[in-house]
């Protein structure tokens, strides 16, 4: 194997390790928050939500290799489309179910 290959492999591994560490930290934070119970409930919920979002970004960046560079525009489009669909589904569900709950009440 050439040096060039070796260097590339190193760099790739490097990325994965950083990703793994970030992912572990971002999982540990909310778990720790809940188990230690140091924060009030609303801040805790915010912490969990933000950690989850960061987790998503970390996975995209380090494991799925998606960033803003030009060669990845296709992938980015797919992600934006996914976001649209997920927003429709989640937003719609929240709207419909809360409306039904309201009507029952």
């Amino acid at each position: 194997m050439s040096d060039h290959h070796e260097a590339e492999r190193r760099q790739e591994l490097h990325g994965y390790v950083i990703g793994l560490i970030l992912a572990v930290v971002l999982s540990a934070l909310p778990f720790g928050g809940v188990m230690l119970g140091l924060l009030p409930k609303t801040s805790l919920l915010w912490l969990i939500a933000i950690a989850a979002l960061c987790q998503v970004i970390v996975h995209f960046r380090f494991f799925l290799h998606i960033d803003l560079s030009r060669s990845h525009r296709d992938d980015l489009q797919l992600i934006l489309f996914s976001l649209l669909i997920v927003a429709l589904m989640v937003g719609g569900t929240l709207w419909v179910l809360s409306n039904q709950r309201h009507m029952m009440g």
Partner: protein
Amino acid sequence: MRHFLLGSLGYDALPFYSLIATFAASIVVLGALAVLVFVTWLKGWRALWSDWLTSVDHKKIGIMYVVVSFVMLARAVVEAVVMRSQQAVAYQNPGFIPPEHFAQLFTTHGTIMIFFMAMPFLIGIYNFVLPLQIGARDVSFPVMNSISLGLTSAGAVLLMISLCIGKFSTGGWTGYPPYTELSFSPGVGVDYWIWALTLSSVGNTMTGINFAVTIYKKRAPGMTLFRMPLFAWTALCISILMIFAMPPLTVATLMLAMDRYLDMHFFTNELGGNMMNYINMFWLFGHPEVYILILPAFGVYSETIATFSNKRLYGYTSLVWATVSIAVLSFTVWLHHFFTMGQDGNVNAVFGIATMLIAIPTGVKVYDWLLTMARGRIRVSVPMLYACAFMMLFVVGGATGVMLANPGFDYQVHNTLFLVAHFHNMLIPGLLFGMLSAYHYWFPKAFGFRLHEGWGRIVFGCWVGGFILAFMPLYIVGALGMPRRSQEFFEAVYRPYLWVALCGAFLVLGALVSMVIQLWTSIKNRKALAVPVGDPWNGRTLEWSIAAPPPEYNFALIPKIDCVDAFHEAKKHRDAWRAPEHYFDIELPSNTPVGFVCCVAGGVFGFALTWHIWWAVILGAAVFFGAIILRSFNRNTTYIVPASEIRENEERWLLTLRETAFIDNDAMFTTANNGLVKEPI
């Protein structure tokens, strides 16, 4: 001990509770035995194993999907006829089917038609056609493709087993809780339903991923997205729909399973469960699903209408955008399936209007097809007949759909046979006819001979006539208020309509029998019907540029594309079928039993979960994942077809081609057709 070995399985699971059930079970068992005997008699076990079951060739996987679909179609049509017969005699009369059994019938009919007839049919056709149309050698993940087929087949087998061992769900194809919760449906039926659906929907999600990646990554050089045939565009759209729409179903059925197995309360009446959450998720899947079913037929008609009108598709770009917008809009309308379930009028209005919007791109399509036909040289082939029947009938179904999109109207007819008439009016012309014409259209490509034309017309006549007789009366009885899923009724005015509907059902049964006869006569006359050159319809897209049946490597050289309908352009400029100067070795994926093993293991897993046989659950899951992991250690996953073999093969075919005379368009449906048709002037 017995409980450990067999779970809740016992003698009482055998179908001796009613004569009809015993009869149906015996047919399944005898049918399976007949297949075993037949294969043995042909001495075909080795060929079956090495040419089919372990094959990862997209063409063979596609054909196997369609075979599964035909078997399931036969069962579901027979069930439909039984239901129609029951309703025809059920005026103030319990008839010959008890309510509980009737409920099983509409549940299995609906479940089979959607998940085990329609889905395998369209996936099978795409599997066969899509790589050929975009100039690829296979799909992106051939082994995953075979595992998807395995999972779908395992689900289908589970449904067949449920006829012989135990009973199936009575909760309808939608399986709404709380009725399907343990407290109201304590038997194994719902569990059969859950696991059959889960297996197949996981398989379908994987298929969606596979097709989407194939289209993104494996198009021939020069084939930009906007040079793809419309059929490939519909493939892209439905793959994306499958990727996003299947997971809500899987989640919903798994949550229902957790309620039933682990004593959770997602959808129960008590302890904070919310059944509306299930219904909401089910239709988050369900509405995109109907477009997964309908878009493929749109794609097929776009191909066949252009081919048999001998014209370029009118308004290609508008058709593409119409398809894409239908796909996106299909995620915004799911609530129209439960207008009556308790949200306020504003919510209903928003979803009602969104629903009506979908009619616009659909209308655009119909006009595009009509304008493609206008001034074309139309040849009245079987697929063209289906396309015309579709355009007329589908517009009726679409119109009743717009009616139903009005919540005020929906309140009147929801849960009546009006709805049943509407969705059959969409699904039979907009799915089944499309797939049947695809079957007729691409059959010669797959097997090297055409299907019998005359019998094709009889099949067509029976389907269309049967459909009209069976479902138009249902609009009327539905508007008169007859509830769907009724085993008995007490209103004399319904009677004549239900008798007409029964006649229609028998005509549909006739169509099924005619299909068998057609296949049989075609196989018997395969020499006369042969089209070895491979272009029997004067086709426009790449799949027609190669031999019929296609060689395992599809294209000796991957073609370069510079316009829409590139093959047709080449023919016009007398530039088609050129012999390549050089041949190269081709690398293809080798056979693997992994798909078959996953099928068996998945089936065991589902069956064991249904009957609470825990050791077999663990065994099934272990074998399933073990097989996939083991496979990933295998580094010898491809084989090489040497250039010399390809040269010999291609030269033999090109020689046949040069020796074959061009025939006139009018001779297309005669035995003079050897797969080479003259371009009309």
